[in-house]
Structures are given as structure tokens and as C-alpha cells.
């Protein structure tokens, strides 16, 4: 049986603009993915913890508050600390291009600006999760990989 793509859509910080997050969540669902929506006002810690327990492939964060340079790096470092770096971090919102470039260098895999069609996001996720479960997470090597992490 094919592994379903699981995505966590998160709204970190105090920003209440959830239109984009909800539209993307609905679009991913309609593309056959399982979407865990965390609700508003989440801390980075609770987002990372949820992503781990839900065993998602992808964390997608929506930030329109200008706090992106604080939040994305924090989520990345928490994932690393929790040995869950395999989870891909992507995002969207009101983010200047210059900051997008900086964040992508720091390890955010992809940032989508305003006006991105949801189909583009769906497509990107399919491509990249496919690559991940093919290479870094084959079903049978689970035990060996778990062993390495000890």
C-alpha cells in the first residue's frame, strides 16, 4: 500500500491571518494528502512536537507577521535537536525575496510567495516527498536507520 503524504500546516506566533493556511490545507486535502492543521498561535516547540508525533513528511508554515526570520530558524534547529531533520520544512506568507533566499540557505526547502497557485504547492510536495521516501526513507531500512540514530 502506498504511503499517504502527510503534511502539517502550522500557524506559528501571534499572527491570526489563517486564510492562506486554510486554503492550502484544503487544497492539499483535495489532492489526496492527509493534512494536520494545528490551529492558530502555536509555538515552534509545539509545532515540531506535533510534526514528530504525527510522523509527517512536511511541515508547512504560514507567516504573515514579519517574524519569519525568527520562526523558521527556530523550527529547523528544534527538528535537528529532536533528530527529526528528515521532515521537510516549507512555508509561505509575506516574506521579502532577500529573506526567502537567506532562509532557503538555512535549510527551509521552499518558500512560496503570494499568488502561488495551490497546484504548484501540491506538485512540489509530490515531487519532493516522492524523492524522500525513495531515498532517505525506504520502508525496509527503517530499523537500520533507527539504529544509526541512537
Amino acid at each position, binding site marked *: 500500500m502506498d504511503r499517504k503524504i502527510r503534511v502539517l500546516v502550522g500557524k506559528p506566533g501571534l499572527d491570526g491571518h489563517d486564510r492562506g493556511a486554510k486554503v492550502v490545507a484544503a487544497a492539499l486535502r483535495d489532492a489526496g494528502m492527509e493534512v494536520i492543521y494545528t490551529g492558530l498561535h502555536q509555538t515552534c516547540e509545539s509545532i515540531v512536537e506535533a510534526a514528530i508525533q504525527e510522523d509527517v513528511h512536511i511541515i508547512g508554515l504560514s507567516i504573515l507577521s514579519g517574524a519569519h526570520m525568527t520562526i523558521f530558524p527556530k523550527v529547523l534547529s528544534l527538528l535537528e535537536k529532536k533528530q527529526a531533520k528528515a521532515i521537510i520544512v516549507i512555508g509561505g506568507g509575506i516574506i*521579502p525575496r532577500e529573506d526567502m533566499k537567506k532562509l532557503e540557505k538555512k535549510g527551509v526547502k521552499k518558500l512560496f510567495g503570494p499568488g502561488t497557485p495551490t497546484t504548484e504547492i501540491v506538485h512540489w510536495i509530490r515531487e519532493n516527498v516522492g524523492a524522500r521516501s525513495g531515498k532517505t526513507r525506504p520502508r525496509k531500512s527503517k530499523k537500520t536507520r533507527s539504529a544509526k540514530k541512537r
Partner: protein
Amino acid sequence: MKKDIWDKKLKTCKERDHDFTTVSGRVTKTLYTPDSIRDFDYDRDLGYPGEFPYVRGVYTNMYRGRLWTMRQFSGFGTPKDTNKRYKYLLNHGQTGLSVAFDFPTLYGRDSDDSLARGEVGKCGVAIDTLRDMEILFHGIPLDQISTSMTINPPAAMLLAMYIVVGEKQGVPMKFLTGTIQNDMLKEYQAQKTWIYPPEPSMRIITDIMAYCTEHVPRWNTISISGYHIREAGSTALQELAFTLKNGFTYVEYGIKAGLSVDKFSPRLSFFFNSHLDFFEEIAKYRAARRIWARLMQDKYNAQSPRSYLMRFHTQTAGCTLTAQQPQNNIMRTAFQALAAVLGGTQSLHTNSMDETYALPTENAVKIALRTQQLIAYETGVANTIDPIGGSYYVEALTNELEQGVYKYFAAIDKMGGVVKAIDKGFFQREISRSAYQYQKSLEKKEKYHVGVNIFEEEGKAEMELLRIPKQVERDQVKALKGIKRERNNKKVKEALRGLHKAAADGSNLMPKILDCVRAYATLGEMCASLKEEFGEYHEPIIF
């Protein structure tokens, strides 16, 4: 019959391949004629400007007497940064101030709160104590300008700070003019800035209404806002219906609290969005005025004509701005601003072209302000009152919207009113469905957005952007620590205890909040003390 001839000819014409519905999906006909408004009665349905039912405007000579207030919403960084921007805007002909607060302030949290990390001064100005407010309005005489503050759960605290700044400038509170948004219902529905559950929030709001009616009579106590409902993705009709229903709900709560409807309702004002669909927007404002006047008279038995007047502020639609080809946003905003003016707005904010990237630069804000000045001084649209009135299309659309609103009202009443419908997630669901539908119609190219799904260009625009340095957060936190050291902490504790007591015993909160503010209690401290009594709100699960 000429119409028959035209009908016949029309059938032979080929239409271009286009979706002829409004941006909200409303079907439009090829042509509107006197037939489209057959039961139309000028005196009953339109009337004269400043006369019932106020469709043509709330004042007798409208813009011939006074132009709308050009009020650019702004705020960023520290109070000092924003003070400088205010002076810049006033020097360039802006006629009123509108304060944008940062997220921690909007949520009643101090700059040193753990959830405030990375957000201090980013989306607006950071205000922690009275000291910040003193800096924000330094050198700006409060008796000469009107100030609008976009603030909701902690509205009472920010108003109290403004009052005390006035006191210190020697301006008694009865002369202060301005607006606090203070519209919690739309927060639960759309903008999602909340602290307490709906019922205690409504109590705070009625406390403010009661206090201001008596002590700050020129202050607009609630700005009932459709803007955020629309930004969250609603249609024009939903914006109109939900906003009006919220307005009537505040009226009902005021009456229930024992206030006289003619005393407090003239201080209610409204705030609408101006979106892409030109005529639909104009019709929306006209329908809003008519519905408000009719129901205030028929249903709520208001006697004073001032209670029938719907005065409103308009902001062009931020959600229609594009990151692609950002200069196009100047034109978009101009059309939207024109619709607001033709719709008879009392004040207007025009968005800046760079706002899909960051807060606007000085230069971008100036162009946005100039757009309004151009409409006012060059186009001639302000020379005569309601030049669109009598258009078959707009009048038909106005009627249609009004009828649609009554249908929504009936549905909400059936659920037990606005607060119950919020609890059921009705508004939230309606809005997110419309938002998703619109996104899908863009992706299917049923609707167009220039630069996004039609006439796209390769390559990315480079723009100069406003950067908020990280230093802002550190400075603000440091200033806050300083205040906490300097102030009389015993006095602060006493004042906070007084506030908590008032929350518990049901007496008006405003005098106690003023005590706290004068003692330099922080916003976070005041909100925490109310939270103890009122609890916190958690959102329902709605998609």
C-alpha cells in the same frame, strides 16, 4: 418595441469567452434597463443626501462641504519610529491618524512575552505602557487631529492610554475625537485576534460604550468592521451581511445593558473593504446605509436621525495586491479608492504597492496618499453628490444585495444570533469556503488577476523595502524593563487588584483601567488580570 428588436439582435451576437459574474460570483446581465428596477420609488428607496434612508450619502452636501478624511493606517518599530512617520504623513496633507499596532500589542501581550519573539514592532508599533503612547503622540496636538486605533481585545487599555496622553497635553477627554475598532465579533469570525471568550468580550465593549457616552462623547466606540471578513475571503454579500448583523448585535447588547439606543448608537461607525469589483462595491456601501437606517428605525425604534446614519471608513483590499508586477497595485488601489469615494465613504486608506512584501516605505505610502488626492482634486467625482445614483445596474445590484442580507439575517437568527453562530462556526465556515472557491476559480482561470494568472511576466521585480531591524525588539524590551524599575510597583499592584475586582463584581472597567494606565501598568499585566476572571478563548475546529 425597441427592446424586442434589441433582444433579437442580441441573440445573433457572439459573446467573448469570459465569466461575466462579479468577483463574488454574482451573475450580471448583459444590460440593465428601467425594467431591472421596476418597483423603484425614489423617495422610499433613495431619498436625498443626509435624508432617510441615506442611500445617497449621510451628509446634506457630502464632499461639496468636506472631503473624506485621508487616513493612512500606519505604525512600525518603536513608538519613536512611528511618531516620525506620523509627522511625515501630516506634513504631506494627511488629515487624520490611524495607528497600526504590532501583534503582541494586538493580543494584549508585552514585548518581553515569550510568544512575542520576532514580532515586536514588525507589523505595527509596539506599545507596552503609557510611556510608549506619550512618545507616539509627542508633538502631535490631540485636540487638532482625530485618531483611529485598530485595536480589539485590549481596546479599553489603549483608549485609556490615549485619554491620559490627552490629559497630559491639557486636552480634556470630552474633546478627544477618534475611533477604536473594538469589534470583537468579527475577530472570532475572521481576523482571529482574541483573548477572552465572546461573552466577557461583549461586556468589555458595553462598558466602553457606557463610559464614552458619558465622558468621551466625540469618540467612536466601535468600528464595526467588514474589512477583515472580506480579507479572510468572504464575498461582498457576506461582508455586508455579517458586518451589519454584528452592528445590530452591538446595538442589542447596548440596549440590554440599559443604555438608550439614541445615546450610544450615533457613536457606532463602520469599516468596509473596497475590493476589485467596482460596481458591486459601490452598491455594497449604498445597501449598507439603507439597511442600517431602515432597521434602526423599524426594529430598534431609534428616534434620533443620528442613530440612522451609517458612517464608515474604507480601506482598499490588501488581499487583491499582487507580489507579481507590484506597480500594478497602484492602479488596483486607485480603482478601489474611486469605488469607495463614489460609495460615499467618510474616510479612506489606500494601500501601498509594496505591501505583499513588507510594511510600506515612505515613498510607497506617499504614492498611495497621492492617489486619494488625485481623486479628490483632479477627477471631479467629488463635485456632485452620488453621481452613480440612478444607474439601473447599481440600483438593481443595491436591491439584490439588500435582499441577500435579509436572507443571511434570517439564517443567523435561526441559529440563535451571532454569538451562537460563532460558537457553531457558521461564519468561519462560510468565509473559508468562499476563500477556497475564489482560489479555485483563479486556478481554473474563471477569474483573472493580472500578472498572476494572465499577462504574467518572467523575472522578478526588485523593490526597495522597509526593514525593521532586530534592534527594535531589544530596545523595546529594554525600555519596558526600565519602566518596570522606575514606576511605583506598589501602586501598580493596587491598581491591578482594583481592575480584577471590577471584573469580578461587574462594575464598569474603564475607571479602573485608567488607574492602571496612570500607574504605568503594562498592557500585558492589565490583560492578564482580566484573563484570570474571564478565561481564554480557543478557536473551534472549522475548515
